[in-house]
């Protein structure tokens, strides 16, 4: 081979000659890069197209980020550490988490860009379809708790987490919830909203700087919210397994975050495993499989509660 002409080797030698410590410090630079990224996004210019609808274009990111942040307010991190304990907690969560799609639709529409438009429309189809599955799978669990208030739901789980109490239908509901939750946050394998290979960046094609960062952040916050709802409804929120740290109530935060982050990991696992679905496959999955299964599952759960076949300690 032409090793004498190899540029790669020469550049590497040259880099080493000017900064010998550089190669060793790359690992530390990765951590600082996160901070740099945030500063970069904060300081970048906010661009926009001339024919965009300026008012709606600027409004859209706030819909997305505010709806995600609002949902965070109701989670019971410990018995005391809960900002806003309303008696329709679960209903509030479902309602608030579906506001985000308005932001996405607005952003896609007002950008005046065909890719953004297609992305936003796909998002509308997807989120509205999967909203049903989320609602119905949570409704299955509400049959068991008899309350929508999140602190009440945790109280019920002191005699066994709901996924144990409701055994088979609860596990089915959990699986449906995780599938629908992944679709709801527009993450792979349901990321047709921003399918890079087809749509550029989807609904946020025209956004830059902090406005783009809001969309981006909201996706990750939504992922945490989906995991946190699952933690609260299926895995006993701040309750420790078998009550091992019941005497130290502050550790509830640790248990809550641990369970939620394990579920976030599960969603990342989906992302690096499954290929992206086509739009017709997505709708087939929801309307032909998840929805009928979910309805049947509610009936089974109702029978279970009626005949007192739940497991509780």
């Amino acid at each position, binding site marked *: *081979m*032409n090793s004498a*002409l*190899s*540029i*790669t*080797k020469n550049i*590497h030698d040259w*880099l080493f000659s000017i900064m010998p410590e550089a*190669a060793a410090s790359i690992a530390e630079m990765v951590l600082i890069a996160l901070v740099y990224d945030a500063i970069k996004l904060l300081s970048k210019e906010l661009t926009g197209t001339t024919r965009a609808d300026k008012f709606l274009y600027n409004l859209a990111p706030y819909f997305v980020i505010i709806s995600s942040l609002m949902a965070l307010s109701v989670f019971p991190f410990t018995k005391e550490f809960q900002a806003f304990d309303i008696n329709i907690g679960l209903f509030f969560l479902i309602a608030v988490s579906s506001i985000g799609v308005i932001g996405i639709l607005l952003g896609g529409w007002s950008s005046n860009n065909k890719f953004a438009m297609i992305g936003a429309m796909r998002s509308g189809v997807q989120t509205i379809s999967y909203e049903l599955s989320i609602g119905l799978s949570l409704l299955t669990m509400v049959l068991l708790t008899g309350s929508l208030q999140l602190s009440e739901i945790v109280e019920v789980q002191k005699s066994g987490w709901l996924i144990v109490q409701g055994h088979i239908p609860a596990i089915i509901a959990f699986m449906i919830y995780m599938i629908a939750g992944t679709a709801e946050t527009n993450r792979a394998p349901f990321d047709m909203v921003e399918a890079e290979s087809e749509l550029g960046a989807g609904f946020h094609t025209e956004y830059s700087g902090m406005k783009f960062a809001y969309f981006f952040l909201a996706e990750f916050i939504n992922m945490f919210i989906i995991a946190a709802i699952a933690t609260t409804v299926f895995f006993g929120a701040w309750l420790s397994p078998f009550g091992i740290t019941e005497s130290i109530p502050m550790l509830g935060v640790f248990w809550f975050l641990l369970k939620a982050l394990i579920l976030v990991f599960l969603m990342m*696992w*989906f992302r*690096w*495993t*499954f290929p992206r679905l086509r739009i017709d496959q997505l709708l087939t999955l929801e309307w032909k*499989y998840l929805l009928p*299964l979910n309805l049947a599952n509610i009936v089974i759960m109702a029978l279970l509660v009626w005949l007192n076949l739940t497991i509780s300690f």
Partner: protein
Amino acid sequence: MSYFSDIYRGIKTLLTGMSVTGKYFLTSRKGAITQQYPDNRETLKMFDRFRGEVIMPHNEDNEHRCTGCQKCEIACPNGTIEIIWDRGINENTGKKKKKIDQFVYHLSMCTMCGLCIDVCPTDAIKWGQNFENSVYDRTALTRVLNEPGSELQAGVED
């Protein structure tokens, strides 16, 4: 009732996929996925099916297996291969015979489609694993694959 068997098969295949990636996540040794490239330049070995460039292997007597049939030249969709050939006289039989003078390979035009390697009847050319193909001058990308003074390996044409 293909409906329920579809659901069963769907869940089963999804779990199979997740177990594969999960196993890889837990048990893969360091460097199985991410290569610390410039640092491990000495030990880095590309995988077997990697298509870096077309090479012509020579044995220790400086003999290659190319008969100069030009099938690769015809198969190539973008004129990457040019065979400059000649006729030589075989000492044993006294017959005139075609042989290659220069096997010219333009790496700058190659799309790594592999048609030339598929079509070669004598396996004279193969994929090389070298990927550091950046050079300062594009003329360096035009290569003569047969070594100077190399001969056709005996018995290839039979």
